[in-house]
C-alpha cells in the first residue's frame, strides 16, 4: 500500500492539518482521563466513597512534552481540559509528543511549588522494544533500518511480553503501539500498573529480561536448572518462529560469518541447554530496562508523528499481530492527502448536517469525526476505541465493587462469630474470597525451620 511519498520538509504544512482535523482528541482525552469525570469539580454524592485524591486531577496533573520546529524541546506542558489541550496543540503544532507522569501538582506550574514537593506520582508501566538492540543477530538490516524479515522479531516480542504481562503479572489493559520507525512500545494502563514504584517497575522489567550483556559479551543467554515456567513458555513461542526467522529469513547457518557467530556461542564444554540458549539469544525480546523503571520517564505518545518517516504511531491490533506490516502504516502525508479526496458519500453526509438543526459546534464535531474516518487512520482509531471500551468497563466495575466492599464489611461486623474459612483481600479495591482449606484466618504456622 503506497504511503504517498513523505518529505520531512512538508511537516510544517501537514501538522496544522493533522492537529485540526485528524488527531483523535476525544479518544485521547478519554484515555488519559481514566474515568476521572468532568474537569469541573462536582459535588460528592452522600455515601459515595471519596475519590482517591490522585484521581481527582489525573489529567490536569499529567506532564506532556513537545518537540517543536528547529528541535526546540519543551517540558512540563499540562492542560486543564480537552479543549485547552486541543487549542495548545493546534497552536504549537508539535513535531513530536511525549507523555510523562501524573504529578502532585500541575506540571506547568511546577516552578511555583516548594522545592521537593513536586513529585511524579503515577504513570503507565511502559516498555520500549527497539530493533537496533538486535543488530548482533540480524543480517538483513542494521541501525535504523527495518524490513519484513527482521520485523518478525517485533512480532515475537509482542507475543511473549503480552502473554507474560497478562498471565504472570495479571495485567489486563495493554496498548501496543508502533513507534513509527524501528520498534514498538507497550503501555500497561491498569490502575495497579500505574501505581507501581520505580523498584517494582525495575523488577518487572528484569523478570522479563533474558538477554544480557553489552558489546563485550558474546554469550548473552545462560540457562540453568531448573528452567522457570516463564522461560519454558517463552521458548515454546520462540520455537514457533525460529525456523522461519533465523534459519530461513536470516539464514544464520547458511552464510559463513553468521555460522561462525553461532559456533562462537558454543563453548568447549557442551552445555546442557545449548540449543535453547541459541534460540533465545536470536529471538527473545530485548527491552531497555531504563525506559521501564522510571516513574517520570517520558515516552513517545500514541498518534504522534515520527518526523523522519512521517509515520503515525498507531496502536497495533493484537488479533492481527502476525499480519502487521510497518510499511503499511499511514504517513501524515498520506492521510492529509486522503482528506482532500472527495468521497461519494461526502455529499450525502453534508445534506444530513444541513437537515438537522445542530448548532455550529456540533457540526464541527461531526465533521471532525468524519474526517479521520475518511482516511487510513480510521481503523487504528477504531481499535483504540475498542481498547478504551475495555477499560471503561473496569472503571465502572470498580465503583460498583467499592460499594460492594462497604456492604460486605458492614455484614461482617454484624456477625458475632468470626468467619473461619474466608479471607478478604482488599488489594486495589478488589474483593476476593479464598477458601483456605486447612488454614484458618489468623493461623500461626507451627513449624518454621530453614
Amino acid at each position: 500500500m503506497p504511503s504517498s511519498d513523505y518529505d520531512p520538509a512538508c511537516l510544517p504544512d501537514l501538522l496544522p492539518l493533522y492537529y485540526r482535523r485528524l488527531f483523535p482528541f476525544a479518544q485521547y482525552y478519554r484515555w488519559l482521563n481514566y474515568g476521572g469525570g468532568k474537569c469541573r469539580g462536582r459535588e460528592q454524592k452522600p455515601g459515595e466513597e471519596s475519590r482517591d485524591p490522585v484521581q481527582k486531577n489525573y489529567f490536569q496533573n499529567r506532564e506532556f512534552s513537545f518537540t517543536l520546529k528547529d528541535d526546540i524541546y519543551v517540558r512540563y506542558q499540562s492542560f486543564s481540559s480537552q479543549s485547552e489541550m486541543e487549542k495548545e496543540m493546534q497552536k504549537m503544532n508539535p513535531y513530536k509528543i511525549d507523555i510523562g507522569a501524573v504529578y502532585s501538582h500541575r506540571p506547568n506550574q511546577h516552578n511555583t511549588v516548594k522545592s521537593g514537593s513536586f513529585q511524579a506520582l503515577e504513570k503507565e508501566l511502559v516498555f520500549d522494544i527497539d530493533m537496533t538492540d538486535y543488530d548482533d543477530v540480524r543480517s538483513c538490516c542494521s541501525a535504523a533500518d527495518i524490513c519484513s524479515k527482521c520485523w518478525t522479531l517485533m512480532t515475537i516480542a509482542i507475543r511473549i511480553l503480552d502473554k507474560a504481562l497478562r498471565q504472570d503479572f495479571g495485567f489486563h489493559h495493554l496498548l501496543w503501539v508502533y513507534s513509527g520507525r524501528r520498534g514498538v512500545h507497550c503501555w500497561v494502563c491498569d490502575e495497579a500498573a500505574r501505581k507501581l514504584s520505580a523498584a517494582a517497575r525495575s523488577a518487572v522489567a528484569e523478570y522479563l529480561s533474558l538477554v544480557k550483556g553489552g558489546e563485550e559479551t558474546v554469550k548473552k543467554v545462560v540457562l540453568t536448572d531448573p528452567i522457570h515456567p516463564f522461560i519454558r513458555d517463552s521458548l515454546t513461542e520462540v520455537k514457533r518462529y525460529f525456523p522461519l526467522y533465523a534459519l530461513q529469513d536470516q539464514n544464520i547457518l547458511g552464510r559463513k560469518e553468521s555460522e561462525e557467530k553461532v559456533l562462537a556461542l558454543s563453548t568447549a564444554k557442551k552445555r546442557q541447554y545449548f540449543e535453547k540458549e541459541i534460540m533465545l539469544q536470536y529471538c527473545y525480546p530485548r527491552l531497555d530496562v531504563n525506559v521501564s523503571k522510571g516513574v517520570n520517564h517520558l515516552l513517545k505518545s500514541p498518534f504522534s508523528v515520527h518526523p523522519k518517516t512521517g509515520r503515525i504511531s498507531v496502536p497495533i491490533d493484537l488479533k492481527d499481530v502476525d499480519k502487521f506490516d510497518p510499511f503499511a502504516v499511514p504517513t501524515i502525508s498520506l492521510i492529509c492527502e486522503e482528506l482532500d479526496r472527495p468521497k461519494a458519500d461526502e455529499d450525502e453526509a453534508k445534506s444530513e448536517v444541513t437537515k438537522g438543526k445542530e448548532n455550529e459546534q456540533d457540526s464541527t464535531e461531526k465533521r471532525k469525526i468524519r474526517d479521520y474516518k475518511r482516511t487510513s487512520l480510521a481503523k487504528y482509531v477504531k481499535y483504540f476505541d475498542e481498547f478504551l471500551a475495555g477499560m471503561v468497563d473496569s472503571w465502572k466495575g470498580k465503583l460498583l465493587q467499592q460499594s460492594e466492599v462497604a456492604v460486605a464489611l458492614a455484614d461482617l461486623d454484624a456477625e458475632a462469630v468470626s468467619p473461619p474459612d474466608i479471607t478478604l483481600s482488599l488489594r486495589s479495591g478488589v474483593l476476593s474470597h479464598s477458601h483456605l482449606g486447612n488454614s484458618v484466618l489468623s493461623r500461626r504456622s507451627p513449624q518454621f525451620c530453614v
Partner: protein
Amino acid sequence: MQFPSKKSKAVTDIKAELYSQPLQFYGQPPLENISLSEFESFAVDRLKLLKTVENLGVSYVKLNEDYSKKLDNEIRTLNFPHGAGDAKEQTEKRRKDHISHFILRLAYCQTEDLRRWFIQQEVDLFKYRFKELKCGEKLEFLHKNNLQYNTISAEEKDNLREKLAISSYIASGVKVEEQDFYKVPFQDALDLVRTRKVYLKEGYVYIPHNEIVTIVLNDFRTRLSKALALTARSLPAVHSDERLQPLLNHLSHSYLGQDYSVQKNVGKISLEQIDSLAGKSFPLCMRQLHQALRDQHHLRHGGRMQYGLFLKGIGLSLEQALQFWRMEFIRGKVDADKFDKAYAYSIRHMFGKEGKRADYTPYSCMKVILSNPPSQGDYHGCPFRHSDPELLKQKLQSYKVSPSGVSQILELVKGMHYQLACQKYFELTHNVEDTAFSLSHPNQYFTESQKVLGGGKDVKRETDILQRPQENSATRGLTAAREPAVDESQHLAEITKNLETDFQDA
C-alpha cells in the same frame, strides 16, 4: 491496671520491652537523651559495620561461610548484638543498634546516592541477622511485625504442583506437599520476582514457607526507603543544631571517602594528553570507553555518563569537555548543529550547569559494578565484572599483560573480586609489587597512577578516611580498619569537645 510507682523503673521496663527482640524493623525512633560522645561513637561504629558489610558483599558470595564468619567477627568487635551474651549485655547492644541506626538515617537521607547506599547495606545486614535467628525467634519476629500472608489451599497447591516445584528453591528433600505456600502480591516480593526465583501467576507469587525471609527483606527495604524520604524533609531542623551538623556532614562524607566531586586539577590536563593518558593511567573501564569513543565516534548514554564524569574528575573543564566530545562526535554521524542541540546539553548537565544544577560526582567502582549493567551497544560498566572472560583475556593480552598476570586476574574475576582484579591490572601495568591503596574509585586509580609515574612527586594526600590498610599479597583477604578509625573518633571528639553537654533527666 497498675503503673509502676517509680519513674525510673518505668523507664527500665520500657527499655526492656523495647529491646526484648534481637532484631527490629526500626519503626520507632529512640526517645531517650544521650550524650554527644555516645552519639558520635555509636554512629561511627555503625558506619564501620556498614562499610564492612559493603566490602564483604563485593568480595564474597553473600551469606556464605567466609562472609558470615567475618561479619560475625566485626559485629562482636564493634559491640553490636549477636547470638551470645546475657540479658543485660544484650539490651545494651540492642540499644546501641537502635540508636546508631537512627543517627545514620540523619546523615544518609540527603541525596539519592547516599540513601541508596545506606539502604543497601542495612538490608544486607538485616538479611544476615535474620538468617542467624533461631526458628522460634523468626516466627516471633513475623508475628510482632504484622506480616501475615495467606496460604493457598491444598487443591490449589495440587493444581500448581509442578510449577511450584520448578520455580521455587525448596530445600532438597522437602516436597511441595509438605510445605505451606503463601500467596503474596508480587509488589511485596520484588526481589524474588526480579530474579525469577518464584512462580508468578496473575500478579501473585507463590512462596514456600522457608522463603518468607525475602518478603521480610522487601518489607524492610520499602519501609526504610519511605522513612528516609520523610527524614530528609525534617533535616533542616536538625541541621540548625550546630553541634550535630559537623558530625553528620562528616559521617556522610566519610562513606564516599574521596568522591572526586571537587576538582583539584581543573585545567591541568590538556586534550592532547588524553590518548596517552588512556593507555598509561586510565583504569581498564575508562580505557575501554575511550577506545570505543575513538573507534565509533560515538558513545551511548551510559558510556557518556561514566566516562564524561571520570574526565571531569581528572580535571577537564567544561569548555575542554565540550570541545573533546564535539570533536569526536563530529567525526562520526553527528553534525555540529545536532551536537550543540542534543549532546552539549547533557555535558553541561554533567557539570551542573543545567536542569536542577546538581554537580554529579564521578562514579565509584561500587556504582559502576552494581548499577546499570551494559546491554547491546554499550561499552560502559566494569570490564572485570561485565566482560566475557574470553574477551577480557584477549584484551589484556593485547595490552601486553604477561600470561601469568592474565591468569592471576582471571582467577580474581572468577572469585568475583573485581576491584582486586583491577588492582592487579594496576600492578602489572605499572610494574609495582603491591599497590599502596585499596581501589574503590576509577579516579583514585588515575591519581595513584599519576603518582607512580610522576615518581612520587606532586603527592596529593587524598585522605580516604575509613580506608582499608594495604593488602598482603599472600592473603588477599580484607581486614577491618582499626588505626585510621581511632584517629577518626579522636578527631571527631576534638571537634565536639567544647560543645559536649550532658543532659540531666528532668
